[in-house]
């Protein structure tokens, strides 16, 4: 089965074409364009305009890259939520159009679960705890009793959002994570920051405020270093708690912030110390992408799920644990 997946929850519009052959996932194409605001954070309408503008050329590029004739596509998958309304609606409109045009079924995919499923199939882990860290989302997810359940999450802002906001304050462009990572490498002195773990939940806004206060008296490199160390250790800690709680021995990384090498090192060390294993798909599958939507669409469709046209209204607030998971 070949699925075309459209991702459009936030700043990235992506199209992926994926084929399933038994348990194997082959990515035939995976292209995307990213909206970068000139200043400030994501403006939802501007992002949606960006997506609409790029969709036709992106579709052509994906078709060319895959070499698949358009009539061979069996399924149209799209990110139905969670995310920014205007972006979601743009992606959904494209998916509906393709579905009607090609007379192929539609499947609306939960974006967070797509991160987990693509990681699972590409890295070969079977029953992991997912540490999902992106701009808007920070969740610790694991499979239990027929659903993907959220064991811990941020109580305020996402980790990526925390990094971006700090980055913006010190004049870095969006997304600020990679620049902060570079600066942090030059940091030597640890500035004391709040450490905010509440059970299996985390909170970042206080740390962000503390970092902004430190700007007057500490080196930027040291603040970036301290910010990363504190936040990433908190994430490793809640992930470890979830692993201990669910008695799972695999940890999977997902989301754009997982491209950060220091975070990966920290989580890998955490896993090794408890005799567990850490898995991470390649960077292009960590960030928002169409292939993960396409792949999850196949899993869903082959277990009997189709989203009828009338039910394709986007779900900005789509919870991870709302989704039934008959494919596991």
């Amino acid at each position, binding site marked *: 089965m070949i699925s075309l997946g459209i991702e459009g929850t936030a700043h990235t519009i992506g199209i992926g074409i994926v084929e399933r052959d038994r348990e194997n996932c082959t990515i035939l194409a995976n292209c995307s364009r990213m909206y970068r605001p000139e200043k400030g954070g994501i403006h939802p309408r501007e992002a949606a305009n960006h997506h609409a503008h790029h969709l036709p050329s992106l579709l052509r590029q994906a078709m060319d890259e895959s070499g698949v004739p358009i009539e061979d596509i069996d399924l149209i998958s799209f990110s139905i939520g*969670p995310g920014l309304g205007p972006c979601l609606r743009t992606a959904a409109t494209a998916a509906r159009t393709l579905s009607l045009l090609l007379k192929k079924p539609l499947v609306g995919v939960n974006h967070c679960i797509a991160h987990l499923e693509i990681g699972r199939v590409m890295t070969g882990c079977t029953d992991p705890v997912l540490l999902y860290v992106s701009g808007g989302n920070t969740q610790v997810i694991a499979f*239990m009793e027929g659903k993907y359940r959220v064991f811990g999450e941020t109580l305020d802002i996402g980790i990526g959002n925390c990094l971006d906001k700090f980055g913006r304050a010190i004049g870095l462009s969006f997304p600020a994570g990679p620049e902060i990572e570079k600066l942090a490498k030059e940091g030597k002195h640890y500035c004391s920051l709040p450490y905010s773990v*509440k*059970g299996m939940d985390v909170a970042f806004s206080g740390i962000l405020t503390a970092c902004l206060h430190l700007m007057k008296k500490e080196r930027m490199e040291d603040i970036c270093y301290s910010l990363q160390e*504190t936040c990433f*250790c908190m994430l490793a800690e809640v992930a470890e708690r979830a692993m201990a*709680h669910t008695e799972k021995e695999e940890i999977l990384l997902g989301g754009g912030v997982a491209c950060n090498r220091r975070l990966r090192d920290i989580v890998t060390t955490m896993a090794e110390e408890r005799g567990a294993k850490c898995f991470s798909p390649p960077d292009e599958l960590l960030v928002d992408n169409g292939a993960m939507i396409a792949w999850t669409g196949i899993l869903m469709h082959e277990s009997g799920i189709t989203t009828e046209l009338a039910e394709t209204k986007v779900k900005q*607030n*789509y919870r991870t644990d709302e989704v039934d998971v008959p494919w596991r």
Partner: protein
Amino acid sequence: MEIIKRGAEAEIYRTEWRGRPVVIKRRVRKGYRIRELDDRIRKQRTKKEALLMMAARQAGVHVPVIYDVNLKNHEIVMQFVEGERVKDVMDEKDEEWQKRVCREIGAGVALLHGSGIVHGDITTSNMIVWQGHVHFIDFGLGTKGGDAEDMGVDLHLLMEAFKAAHRNPHLFRWVMEAYETHFEGATEVKKKVEEIACRGRYMKGEI
């Protein structure tokens, strides 16, 4: 010393201390944390945990008795509570048992909150039924002098733990019933729990 549990942040050893059966909880160094952060977190949590457990005991909550604290090795020596972990047995027991235990959990949390103690990691993994009573363990993430917000976070975590780990959907309601009868500030905290639940990503306000 026999290691009986390797938790997320500590190792638990079973041994004897001056003729008494005890467990030693030792917070281990985490290789993924930089030294400064690691030392600070381990020392702070060991000290705070011991203080909180003593305060909880004074409030009339069942917790292991503390015999010794060693801040250099990040160790607490405490009474060995040899019972069943609520997380392991809850789903196997009949409804009467579940109801009784949930009420005791609610009453216990009420007593803690009534004396300003917030547990901080209140899941069924951290409760042991021993000699007919629910004993609370692992106060490592707790705080003293918490406000309604902190207590709300506490109960919200418990609610999430019930949802995630146990099948019977009535459990948390029974906890809350007992909580409300045993703690004056319950109404305010309950409101906070609802507020916090809505604060989580994409919640629509129902709990």
